[in-house]
């Protein structure tokens, strides 16, 4: 008897009892569904973290010279915090000193930022991230302007009160009116709007367009950073090797400037997207460790359910087995019939689980800010697990069926 015959019999038996078959494969369905959904979300997060999140926070081939880490994944002790807060801050002179000592081609921008209220006439935009920086910032962030122009190095040097708005801020203050050349006030100080940045979309449901950019030494600077102090200096290199080189030079320059002896730890921080990806890597590792447990439990339960159903099927169909044996079925024929039936059940469960898992993943993507991307290997794994569970769960019932005595089996009711 060929595999094709065994499969025809199996699907016949499954079709004859649709509801029972469905309930028997629900365990495998749930297991595989979790597998697909969780892997899809993690995979989506991976892509997202690497391509969007990390770059939005730090930027590709970019590092930041800071007093202390900006992105902290996990818990940090009080003593560590205190040490961070006791460090000297980054001054304008620090920035110039370090920038002058980086020999590979990099683009540098001083950076300071705080939440401020912007007003235009009677209209207000609250909780806007006011960024004080240099003209190079637009290049580092890769901002394209929807309207107007970025500010120039001359305007930065002259501390001009000029402002480039994020798309959402422009929308909120001007509502379709042309913002260019208009006067916006920050803490009572007048600024002239010279440009609007193209919309940047959202990140985890938060708008990336609620900002306004001005020269770092423009009149409102004291509201976002103390005089002569910066939050950070951004450096963007053209490629990874330049980035590594520039980071080494920046570290050496800062240590020399602060007079740190060999063995003394840095009292400043160089931040890259690696820190964020690292943190995400730790989270996803935990998820990936929990996943086999979750899937494993469901599959074991699913396998036990299928084994029970198959044992019941063997009992219910004892007479059928007797008939088949009388007509010439060998042990291996009966074995393969029940094994294939069990494997078919379980694989159908896996297939439905893949469908449900994909559905769940897309539902997550549609209803939450979490992204989802399907990993092909997880689909293959789902099917393979289904077949394995089916064969494992079916082997004992199939063995029992194959060993039935034809005379006893024929006499069964």
């Amino acid at each position, binding site marked *: *008897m*060929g595999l094709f*015959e065994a499969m025809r019999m199996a699907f*016949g*038996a499954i079709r*004859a009892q649709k509801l029972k078959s469905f309930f028997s494969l629900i365990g495998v369905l749930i297991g595989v569904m979790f597998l697909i959904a969780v892997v899809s979300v993690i995979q989506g997060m991976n892509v997202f973290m690497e391509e969007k999140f990390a770059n939005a926070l730090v930027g590709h081939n970019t590092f930041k010279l800071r007093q202390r880490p900006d992105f902290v994944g996990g818990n940090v002790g009080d003593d560590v915090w205190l040490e961070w807060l006791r460090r000297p801050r980054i001054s304008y002179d620090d920035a110039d000193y370090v920038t002058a000592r980086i020999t590979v081609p990099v683009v540098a921008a001083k950076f300071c930022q705080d939440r401020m209220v912007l007003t235009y006439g009677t209209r207000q935009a609250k909780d806007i991230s006011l960024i004080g920086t240099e003209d190079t910032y637009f290049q580092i962030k890769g901002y394209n302007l929807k309207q107007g122009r970025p500010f120039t190095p001359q305007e930065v040097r002259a501390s001009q009160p000029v402002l480039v708005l994020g798309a959402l801020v422009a929308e909120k203050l001007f509502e379709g009116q042309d913002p260019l050349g208009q006067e916006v006030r920050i803490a009572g100080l007048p600024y002239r709007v010279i440009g609007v940045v193209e919309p940047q979309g959202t990140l985890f449901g938060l708008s990336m367009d609620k900002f306004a950019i001005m020269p770092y030494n423009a009149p409102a600077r004291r509201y976002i950073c103390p005089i002569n102090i910066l939050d950070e200096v951004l450096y963007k290199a053209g490629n990874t090797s330049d980035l590594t080189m520039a980071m080494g030079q920046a570290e050496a320059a800062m240590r020399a400037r602060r007079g740190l002896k060999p063995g003394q730890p840095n009292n400043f921080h160089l931040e890259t997207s690696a820190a964020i990806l690292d943190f995400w890597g730790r989270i996803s590792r935990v998820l990936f460790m929990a996943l086999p447990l979750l899937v494993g439990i469901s599959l074991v339960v699913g396998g036990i359910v299928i084994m029970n159903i198959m044992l019941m099927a063997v009992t219910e169909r004892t*007479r*059928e087995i*007797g*008939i*088949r*044996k*009388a*007509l*010439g*079925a*060998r*042990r*291996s*024929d009966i074995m393969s019939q029940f094994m294939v039936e069990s494997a078919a059940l379980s694989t159908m469960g896996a297939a439905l689980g893949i469908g449900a898992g994909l559905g769940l993943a897309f539902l997550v993507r549609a209803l939450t800010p979490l992204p989802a991307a399907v990993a092909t290997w997880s689909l293959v794994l789902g099917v393979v697990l289904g077949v394995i569970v089916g064969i494992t769960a079916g082997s004992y019932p199939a063995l029992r069926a194959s060993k039935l005595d*034809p*005379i006893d089996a*024929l006499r069964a009711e």
Partner: protein
Amino acid sequence: MSDRVIHVEDLRREYQMGAERVLALRGLTLTIRRNEYVAIMGPSGSGKSTLMNLLGCLDTPTGGTYWLSGQEVSRLSDDALARVRNREIGFVFQTFNLLPRATALHNVELPLVYAGVASRERRRRAEEALTRVGLADRMRHRPNELSGGQRQRVAIARALVNRPSLLLADEPTGNLDSQTSEEIMRVFGELHRQGQTIIVVTHEPSIAEHAARTVVLRDGRLDSDTRTERAAA
């Protein structure tokens, strides 16, 4: 020698029932030749079911030998017996023993499935067998859509489809009314005329009358073996 379909010599079968040893067959010698039509009779407990299981290769004897179509089958393994059942024996049971979910056609195809016949050829031979028992118009019906007599005809078609050397019927009319019984026995008579070797196990004398030879068992031994010329005609 070559026309001996069945030859059993000193056939014995014991069962262990708990501590008790039951001697179901106590040494039976019997020869059945090609195209014989034999009825096996005997009261319950006489060993006729045991004999039928042994002749049908569903069971193996604890003593003695059994040749079926020249092959000794008394010491074969389970799988080898399955092969012999598939090739050499066609069963007809009292309770029909059709697969309830399968159509008449599929039921008849079943022995061919286990014989490894390709599906097109299987279909052709199953249709031929069903036509032979007069069910050409009922091939797609399931057993529960057929009358008792029709079901038994399907079972006969199934028994014949592998062209076995022996048709073995166990109380083939036990679940049928007398008119239908006659109908089934007419089918058996027709098959016999066409050259089929037939054994019918029964306790009804009226059924045994159709056979050309009646073997009666008593207490696990041969009681009588008589030939009636009448039915052969």
